[in-house]
């Protein structure tokens, strides 16, 4: 079993894996960080999006070997129930999720967008989230929440 050292949500973590090609997604969920969801395993739906060094990436497409030494942020590290990230707060206030299975990935993609651009336009938000699919149809609320979180109330 090879050992991989990562920084996850600010803490040093060691993951053991017999397979260097094990996707980061399974390592995270194996550590009990289950906010990150398996959706397709193909990088098509965005449910497993996490921040790798502040970039929104699909954890089903990143091998554990490729993230050795990297800093990973999952939804659990974005904010907490007592101290939610502005995006989490806005998603709660707008009552965004229905089933909510896509919500974690949406929040991580939106967080990456807001760290690059403080006040994105609605069109920029839609483009940034195009790789995150939602089947329940919460799109309108997601867009409203991201606008609200960036101080652009609607």
């Amino acid at each position: 079993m090879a050992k991989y050292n990562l920084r996850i949500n600010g803490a040093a973590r060691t993951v053991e894996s017999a397979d260097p090609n094990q996707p980061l997604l399974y390592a995270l969920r194996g550590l009990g960080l289950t906010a990150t969801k398996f959706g397709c395993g193909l990088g098509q739906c965005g449910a497993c999006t996490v921040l790798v060094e502040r970039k929104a990436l699909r954890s089903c497409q990143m091998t554990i070997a490729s993230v050795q030494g990297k800093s990973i942020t999952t939804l659990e590290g974005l904010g907490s129930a007592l101290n939610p990230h502005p995006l989490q707060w806005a998603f709660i206030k707008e009552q965004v999720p229905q089933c909510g299975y896509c919500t974690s990935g949406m929040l991580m993609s939106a967080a990456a967008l807001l760290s690059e651009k403080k006040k994105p336009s609605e069109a920029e938000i839609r483009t940034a989230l195009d790789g995150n699919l939602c089947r329940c149809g919460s799109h309108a609320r997601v867009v409203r929440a991201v606008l609200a979180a960036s101080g652009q109330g609607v």
Partner: protein
Amino acid sequence: MNAPIKSSRFSRRALLKGGALTVGFALTGGRTGAFAQGVAGGPRVLDPKEVDAFLAINGNGTVTVFCGKVDLGQGLRIAMPQIVAEELYIGVDKINFIEGDTALTPDQGRTSGSNGIQRGGMQLRQAAATARKALIELAAQKLNVKAEDLIVANGLVRPRAGGDGISFADLISGRRFDLKLDPKAPRKDPATYTLVGKPLPRPDVPAKCIGSHMYVHDFTLPGMLHARVIRPPAIGAKLASVDESSVKNLAGVQVVRIKDFLAVVAEDEWTAVRAARALKAKWGAGSRLPEQAKFVQALRTDPSITNQDLVTKGAPVTPLPQNAKMLTASYFWPMQSHASLGPSCAVADVRAESATVWTASQGTHGNHTTFARFLGLPKDKVRLIYLEGSGCYGMNGHEDAAADAAIVSRAVGKPVRVQWSRADEHGWDPKGPAQLLDIAGAVDADGRILDWRTDMWIPRTTRGMLNIPLLGPEAAGLDNIVGLNTGLISQNGDPPYAADHIQVIVHWLKDAPLRPAPLRSPGKPANCFAVESFTDELAAAAGLDPIEFRLRGLKNPRGIELIKRVAAMMKWQSRPSPGANKNAALARGRGMSYVHYKHEETFVAMGMEVAVERASGKIKVERVFCAHDCGQIINPDGVRSQIEGGITQTVSRVLMEEVKFDRSHVTSVDWASYPILKFSEAPKIDIDLVDRPTEPPLGAGEASCSAVGAALANAVFDATGARLRTIPFTPERVKAALGGHSS
């Protein structure tokens, strides 16, 4: 679209705690044990005729609500407590909510058909009203006063004139009501409602945004193993042989083979995935699927057809007046997938003498017998517990995954989690069936419908079939139900407008190429697409504005009000379709549709504005307007959320979704081959809710879906003069229709 949230009810604290409502997920261990023995003394009462099946008053003054209907993200976890708390004059923060557990909750039927509130919620309202009456009577005895001199407030029964009251807990905690639901128990006057009708926040939302919500996908048990099931390359193929040495190099992997059921089991999920990919197996030939290119035409001549005259109203006008115009048209809605964002998953712990299954099924109770039978266990030794999964819109693969987990757990003697792959979900989830409709009609110059005949070709639901055959038991040769279940897919095949003569004839098909199941608003999106598109075609033939045409034929005042409201919302300009700019490179148009769901439930009027790019054939739905009347609204934000979701999901189904298959299997097995609507394609939606507090509440999850297809097709016709009659409206189909070819 939403009113700004100002009320103090929406304090930061309340929102984060989801209105401070406690949602009880009866998982394992002590808590469940306490509930199973009955929080109000003795074993749980599960008979849905009994108050105790639904409610228990706890010693600390809280009330536990036991609900057989489940929350799939549609908001029952707040709506049901709102209904109960209202009748009991307590806050929703005093409610514990338990859902979909065969050991704890009464069987209220599947969470389907948009009837969660309108049936399940009304049972709860009756239980709460009966309980309130009983509490007042108990207090009257204790205080030695007349019941009519007592009132209920804040969890107490107290004298109307003032003075000390007695708490619910002191009156009954630890004991049962031992009462049947009383339809005559007085209900609270809707004019005095303080909770029903308010947009209270959903209790599961904070956890879903923080990442702590427990989905069935996240549930674990000590010693739990991970499995993947290997389905055959061709539907119906038998397993010839398995080469177990092909997974020998993967530590701890077990192969489970039971007849044609094949699974791999490992200690961690990734190893199970690798084993499923590596395992070499030989399969026989499958049971040939029809050729997709010839599928639609073959429906009309299917030798299994039995005909049924479903609707006959009025008498034919003979002869038709000279100015009558006669039209015929065919509409087709293809097989579609639930396309749940997360593939199905379940956990099962099957022992020699008992079994517990954690499942995202919309029908834990409805599957209880099925699971007991294929496991060969008595029903009281089998427990199905609902845990939320990825959104499900009828019956996706959740129940199959639960059966898979149960079969594998029994084989290995340990708790097992089964997670389907993306290809499993798209390939093997039960499909919304294909629907073919022919409509013939005649209209006179005044816009009067003289004649209307709908012929529909749809698969028949097997009599008495409430569930669907499950893949695992079938492959493993275990006891399995046989037949089809498609939901009530023949409804709304006739127009809601006056006509001299209306006929609906169903040509029932005995089978469907891929296993069918109800998919959100079963059948109605297709039937209303055809009926409301044809209505538009008649309006155009009569040279009338589409709204004017509908209003001339509509008598129901609630329907008329909605059509007028949607016209006002979108500043509808009265004129016949198509509009004047139909040859523009980017042609814009507006269309509408009207649906009275199942002819007796929710009313919807929907308008759409679309832009059609002539060169590419791409349709952009720019705005959707929806006027909606579902009677008494329990939670307006929940209703809005359901309407937004229903519209967005159905725009996706109409524009891009069709299951593709070759002669052996489904070929649209990922998001590239089965695309759904993206953010840049999702429409802006404006909703106008009509609340009727004194009317019964009706469903809000399905009705809006059924209005989408026609509103969209009618807007495209208005924009371009081209009529789209085959779903999905792909750019290729649009281009063909613009070029004058029939779609």
